[in-house]
């Protein structure tokens, strides 16, 4: 994990350093504790520990010179699936208020069923829309949770 630790360590070091500057800018309090104290403790501690992580990673790389991909259970196929998931998840969040729960979920979960291994596209489509409609009615009728309706003027018989 040497190389991965170094990359993660530097990323978190940078982010926590940036946030620490923000925490330092929070107002000081004369009674009790200041709003910035706890975040500053957490972020300061994060910076120190990430420095340790980077140093340890460098030491490990020098000792073993092991490759990142060999030690990590991640390959291109796996990363591709996760990237597709993330892309469609963002699209789903964007489409949810526009198309409403049933249509947006029907599309998103169609992709998810295919990613999960349902190879027939038609079957995946029936499963995704079917489960979205059932879930919509279960939550609407039994649990009184009104799931999003479409903002766009499209037919929505649910």
């Amino acid at each position: 994990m040497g190389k991965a630790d170094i990359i993660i360590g530097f990323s978190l070091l940078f982010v926590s350093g940036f946030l620490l500057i923000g925490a330092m800018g929070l107002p000081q309090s004369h009674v009790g504790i200041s709003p910035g104290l706890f975040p500053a403790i957490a972020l300061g501690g994060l910076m120190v520990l990430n420095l340790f992580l980077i140093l340890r990673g460098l030491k490990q790389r020098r000792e073993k010179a092991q490759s990142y991909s060999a030690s990590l259970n991640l390959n291109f196929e796996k990363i591709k699936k996760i990237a597709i998931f993330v892309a469609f998840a963002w699209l789903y969040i964007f489409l949810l208020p526009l198309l409403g729960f049933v249509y947006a979920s029907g599309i998103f979960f169609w992709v998810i069923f295919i990613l999960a291994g349902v190879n027939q596209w038609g079957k995946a489509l029936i499963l995704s829309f079917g489960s979205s409609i059932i879930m919509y009615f279960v939550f609407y009728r039994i649990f009184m949770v009104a799931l999003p309706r479409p903002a766009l003027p499209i037919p929505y018989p649910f």
Partner: protein
Amino acid sequence: MDVIQISLVEGLRQILDFQTLLYIFGGVVFGFIVGALPGLSASTGIVLVLPLVYHIPAAEAIMIMLGIYGGTMFAGSIPAILIRTPGTPSAAATVLDGYPMAQRGEAGLALSTSAIASFVGSLLSAIALFLIAPQIARVALKFGPPEFFSLVVFGLTVIASVTGKDVIKGLISALLGLFLGTMGMDPISGYSRFTFGSYALEGGLPLLPVMIGLFAVSQVLRDIEEAGITYQVINKIGRIWPSREELKRILGASLFGSAVGTLIGAIPGIGGSIATFLAYGQYRKFSKRGEEFGSGVLEGVAVPESANNATTGGALIPLLTLGIPGDIVTAVMLGILILFGVNPGPMLFREQPEVVNRLFASMFVIAFFILVLGLFGARFSPKILAIPKKILSPLVLLLCVVGAYADSSSAFGITVALVFGVIGYFMEKFDFPVAPLLISMILGPIAEGELGRSLLISRGDWSILFVRPISLCFLILAGLSLFFAFRKKD
């Protein structure tokens, strides 16, 4: 002693009605199914069912959660025995003897052994919880803000140090959780912190979507990653009921496993997996059949399964009395208790004794349901394993999405759940434990509040944390736990 007896009777009186028993039984059945499906854990099951129980009273909802917890801990043994894959991490030791028994055609006997052992473990740990918890709560009632602050610091350092393979990564996870817990409005000054202009973040990160993301969505991502993997299920169940001689052996081993499980479960951060392997290893050393362990002996199933279920009662001791979760499941339960307006800690025993009574009594009922379901459901166990993951995982994700939305009736919850799902997935990939992040996120604001109150009492003098003996003691223990964790790694 009288108080304890009265509480138990009172608790049982309150829960022995059809509806409450149905709730608890439903929780155990759901836990049974979740635990039997490899990959789904108790914490996943609990967060998935939470949106469905929002509308029922807190005590009943919490009893359902306890039912899921107990049911899952038992049912993790089903895939361990039938497909050589533990359903939950703490059922890993059960594979060693359970699967060889199933290969010999004794799957039914292994499953009934697991049910009986889980019953003994659950029952004995419930007794321990009932006897020990009120005593600890009585002592903890004397704690003031400095003691609680130091206790939370101690709890966090122990959990961060012992969870996962790497102390540094455990601490990074804990500090990340501590920071995330500070997002939103400062409880003392009312000043907004790290909201980045988002109104939705004013109240802080919503806990339920975070939990759904970290435990359920990340699991779905792992399932998607492993799409196509199939299991070879042993369908031949064979004899289920043990003979009198076999029952004696099971009970003897279960008593030992239960004692170890309860003790280990009560120590924050250690959890079921270590308890089961420790109990298994120790019993193997002292048993007459020690050399047969690993080839499929009853004791090899009874010891880990009893230890596994005994950790449930043990882990509830620090949770209910001090508000410190013992493992990842109790961390999720702590979050849920807070969501339901039940604040665990000694004050719970004083202010809401009826809730405590009902929870204690439900632990006994859950133990009996596990036994009944385990013995009579053994024949149907292979059917649960036949549910295809390619259908189940997307449905779990759909439930996650709806649950995250139902929390605040806003798409923000879904965004948080999906983002934390990806975070949880990569944390697991890079060996960062998730438990310290969640526990710190929940305990951080509590610690901040207690520190603020301590400094108000002392008028800004930090020495209040060091001059009060119990507070000092917890801080020393926190320092020692970190010191030994680092030393062990060196």
